[in-house]
């Protein structure tokens, strides 16, 4: 019995937890600012809601990585494949970009979105720009997601071969 499968699952869990915590904090942070704006002007709900959702995607990406990983190593199908410790660590490493970058980028995206909320409060016609500012941060979560996915798929391809 090797620790391979354990490391692999640990990686997936970290991705889901990192992205999830980051998003939870981020969405909560923007939500507080958004609630303040809505108290003054309920008609801005739609605009601030989009800003609130933006830092939520990291949680989704983390979930995605965790799910893909569980499928790749067969845990999802009920027949886990045999992994050596080294192979397990490879999967673990593959999950790290999403776990770390997801967590941190969600927090920073939330900061950008909170400032965006004040744009919506003062100049609602410029809310599109507020969204773009926050979305800029998202790029790095997307890149992390991508590298995690590519690494994972290629690891599976190499193990299978």
């Amino acid at each position: 019995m090797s620790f391979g499968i354990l490391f692999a699952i640990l990686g997936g869990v970290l991705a889901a937890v990192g992205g999830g915590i980051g998003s939870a904090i981020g969405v909560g942070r923007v939500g507080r600012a958004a609630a303040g704006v809505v108290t003054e002007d309920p008609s801005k709900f739609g605009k601030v809601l989009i800003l609130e959702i933006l830092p939520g995607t990291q949680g989704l990406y983390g979930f995605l990585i965790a799910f893909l990983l569980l499928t790749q190593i067969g845990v999802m199908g009920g027949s886990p494949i045999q992994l050596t410790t080294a192979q397990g660590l490879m999967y673990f490493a593959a999950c790290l970009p999403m776990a770390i970058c997801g967590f941190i980028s969600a927090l920073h995206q939330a900061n950008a979105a909170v400032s965006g909320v004040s744009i919506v409060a003062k100049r609602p016609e410029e809310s599109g720009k507020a969204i773009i500012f926050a979305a800029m941060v998202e790029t790095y979560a997307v890149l992390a997601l991508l590298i995690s996915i590519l690494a994972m798929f290629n690891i599976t391809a190499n193990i299978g071969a």
Partner: protein
Amino acid sequence: MAKVEMKYAEIIAPVETAKELFDYLQVRSVMEVKKLDEIDGLSYFETGPVVSSIEKYLDTAQTALEIIDKYAPAKSSLIDSLKGLPEMSESDYLKKSDEADEILGICLKICNAEKEISEDKALISRSQAAIDAVEPWLKLDVPMQFKGTETSKAIIGTLPDDYTAEKFAIALAPYLDGEERYECEIISHSADRSCVFILAHNEAYERVLSALRSLEFAFPSDPTKHAPEVRYGRLRNKIAEAEAEIESDTALIKELAANRDDIKFACDWFSIKHDRYTALEQTSAGDSIVAFAGYIPADKCETLSKELESRFSAAVEVRDPPDEDDVPVLLRNRPFAAAVEPITEMYAMPAKDDIDPNPVMSIFYYILFGLMLSDAGYGLLMAIGCGIAKFKFKVTGKLKKTVDMYFWCGLATVFWGVLFGSFFGDIIPRISAEFFDKTLVVPWAADTPGSIALWFEPVNDPMKLLCYSFLFGIIHLFFGLGCAFVKMWKQGNKTGAVFDCVPVFLLILGIVPIGAGILNVTVPAILTTIGKYLAIAGSVLIVLTAGRSSKNIAGKLGIGLYGLYNTASGWLSDILSYSRLLALGLCTGVIATVVNTLGCIPSNKIVKTVMLTAVFIFGHVVNMAINLIGTYVHTNRLQYVEFFAKFYEGGGRSFTPLRTNTKYYKVKED
């Protein structure tokens, strides 16, 4: 089909036709009025007081509308909001405008009724507080200001504790010697307060009072002149009266709410008038003439100046706008391209020298949006929803553009969904496998059982889609560079166009086969060789030309090398940025598949059907909503940051003609 050419017109008209002329301009909505420079003998129209009184009327009408919406909300549905504004013919509109004063009277009545209601509400809460204060004293049958008789003195007040008669006597005992003659009555008592009435003999008064003080006795702050009951009754009556008044005022507002449509009209009417008088402020007037200038779209110039000359005996002089002028920008595109105008406007209107990016941008916007959402089911829902709004309800204005945009985005999403075999995730093959125990094999994907992809499934070969994402990115960016070329060429900067764009084309074209090789794509050797020479040629050209504005050789070379570095690193990061096409596409597809997997967990087929239905509806609604936002945001980003950065300056000013800018009715020319 792009930016509309603007002309500058100067108009002089007889002063007596000025009002009619502006009415006419407002209905035609083709001219943005502008102040003329000061002319001797003419002075600007002073419309400030009129404008501010109109603002007051407008405010009254809007407040009245808000009030009736609060007291008698109008039924409205989403469908109503799609239908757009009801239309009103110009003659009806003018007829109705005679009633404006009358409607304003109604609005004032509504506002006054609302004011009375809020005053009454304040009165009720004040009276209620007074009632609360007097209520504990109700059992007292003398006035609270009662001083006593000839031989006795009354002490009326409160103690901060709960006393019964017995408990009170015990509490008082330590402070008295038992000789004093006094009579005590507890009027009422509660957990933290007791109201007491004490009648003490004149001799005992001082001692009793000081004993009471030891128990923290206090006189009431507002003792009644009559028995407390009298004040209580009076307050009750006040509340009843106020309540009755509120009721009658509410009824009045509800009754006047029947005039909702008229009030809406009044709001529109006053805002139209407001705009017109603000525009009149821009005119210079003398004893017999008015003079003003403005911008007019070139194609409207001829008819407008003819009309003005014949109907208002005005003199119109049309010419090209002076170069240093801040000329407003008006975009006019076919519906397909016009649909993305709001996206461009959100970034910035095109500046004077910019070309209109919308025609090129629209096709890429739809393609990239579709690629990132990439689920035929979601795309179909979007296209159907927007199709209904578009064809059945005939939405207009800015909403129409947005609906159009999502309609085309929806169709593009269906296109990519079909290519990637994603229809609400993998619901079709999954139902076939779970409910009919058969792996679905379709003729166009015979070698991959269980897939219905016309091209390939990104999950099975993400590297392939990654390469294509970069390819689409390069094409997108090349179009951006092409726009830069066209823009500079049109401005007359032909050397700039050639030296700034062509070498980049060569360099990137040359690097593509080499880059593809790195990503394990088999490229014919000949292409790689050609690529190498193209890349070298491009690099050399950049080094030679990027520093052409510098004076000395060293500067030219230094700036040239720096230019090469900038081009290479900039384009590398721009192209890599398109990897989001793959990431977001995978995200939608995988989560949709997860939803379907969750729905199929139970093994009993009946339970599975119920479960799948519930999970399917909830899961796909959430997935679609989240991914729609993500896709929208990232498509915008690719346009703004990658595409626009290649050529678009922005910073122009929207053309805002004097027009009938209404909120509730649309005025149609007869």
